[in-house]
């Protein structure tokens, strides 16, 4: 009996320790969400300026650009997967990886070969564990992504895209990442990055300038587009990284909150059991004493 009480007390103690850790992690990620969200908001002017400029060039010049033209045959495709470096974030990484797998299935069923660019230690681990090959990976910076990494990724995918597909290059590039919708919900997003479909942004019709003015290009439309498109791609990638990092912190907060709640529940349950055990131990001791006394008095 005494042994059982000790076991329960041990379990309570361990649940309490775990709770302390998860609670701390919850608080940490709660404060990081705000920072990550602020960074998403801060990068907003840049990406909207670039999107505007790209759609302005694309709609006012009939320049066919290698990045915007659809190749006749798509033999090889690449997927860029944005995961986090660390786990403890609920379904955050698995949902992105699942989306990527579904996309892979789809592309393979269309007869395309698939190559991978991985961002975040978790996706690298996933691929290594399954002994699958990948083209390149970037790890270590997913908590607070910087623009240099985005640029590196942008350069790498562009380089793969511009190479001939018989030469190991790819004909289209998809990105899969978690978008931060709210603290509660993070949605995996799958989009095609290249070839670009330059759509005139949907929010344009009700904006002030319905029609883009006739721009003067310096030096000329082609060069401007040449300069803009890679920047546009970098900014899309940067945005994906920022979204993913905000989503990661939100997912961690949610996961750690439910872990703390679970620990609370465990502590309550074990406390009840421990009380029960203690009570029955006392009851038994009393009945032993009473029984003993009885036996003594009847023996007289």
């Amino acid at each position, binding site marked *: 009996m005494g042994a059982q009480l000790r076991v329960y007390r041990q379990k309570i103690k361990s649940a309490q320790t775990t709770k302390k850790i998860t609670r701390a992690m919850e608080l940490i990620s709660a404060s990081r969400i705000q920072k990550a969200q602020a960074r998403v908001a801060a990068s907003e002017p840049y990406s909207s300026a670039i999107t505007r400029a790209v759609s302005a060039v694309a709609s006012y010049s009939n320049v066919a650009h290698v990045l915007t033209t659809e190749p006749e045959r798509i033999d090889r495709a690449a997927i860029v997967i944005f995961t986090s470096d660390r786990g403890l974030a609920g379904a955050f990484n698995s949902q992105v990886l699942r989306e990527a797998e579904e996309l892979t299935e789809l592309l393979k069923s269309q007869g395309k070969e698939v190559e991978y660019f991985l961002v975040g230690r978790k996706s690298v681990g996933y691929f290594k564990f399954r002994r699958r090959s990948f083209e390149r990976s970037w790890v270590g910076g997913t908590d607070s992504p910087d623009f240099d990494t985005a640029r590196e990724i942008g350069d790498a995918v562009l380089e793969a895209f511009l190479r001939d597909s018989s030469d190991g290059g790819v004909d289209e590039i998809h990105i899969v990442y978690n978008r931060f919708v709210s603290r509660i919900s993070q949605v995996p997003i799958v989009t095609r990055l290249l070839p670009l479909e330059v759509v005139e942004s949907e929010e344009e019709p009700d904006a002030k300038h319905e029609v883009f003015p006739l721009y003067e290009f310096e030096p000329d439309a082609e060069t401007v587009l040449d*300069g803009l498109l890679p920047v546009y791609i970098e900014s899309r990638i940067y945005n994906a990284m920022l979204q993913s990092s905000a989503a990661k912190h939100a997912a961690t907060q949610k996961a750690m909150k439910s872990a703390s709640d679970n620990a609370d529940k465990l502590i309550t349950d074990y406390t009840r059991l421990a009380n029960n055990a203690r009570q029955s131990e006392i009851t038994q001791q009393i009945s032993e004493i009473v029984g003993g006394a009885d036996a003594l008095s009847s023996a007289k």
Partner: protein
Amino acid sequence: MASLNVSVVSADQQVWSGEASMVVARTVEGEIGILPGHEPMLAILAGGEVRVTLPGGEKITANADDGFLSVQANAVQVVASRAELV
């Protein structure tokens, strides 16, 4: 006199924005000065200084690494992956 609505934007933040009477920047073709009423334009910037003259005559200088400049209806945007005020 009309004035320009200028914003200097880098990849991770808006560096500066406000009213100005003139913007001087370096494009790949050479230096260009923009006054209110300039025609719509998109230009690729060569790395270097962007000088913004405020309506009061004060001057603000920003370093823009590489990026572009867009002018449209008296709104000037200097967009560069790296930009900072000097």
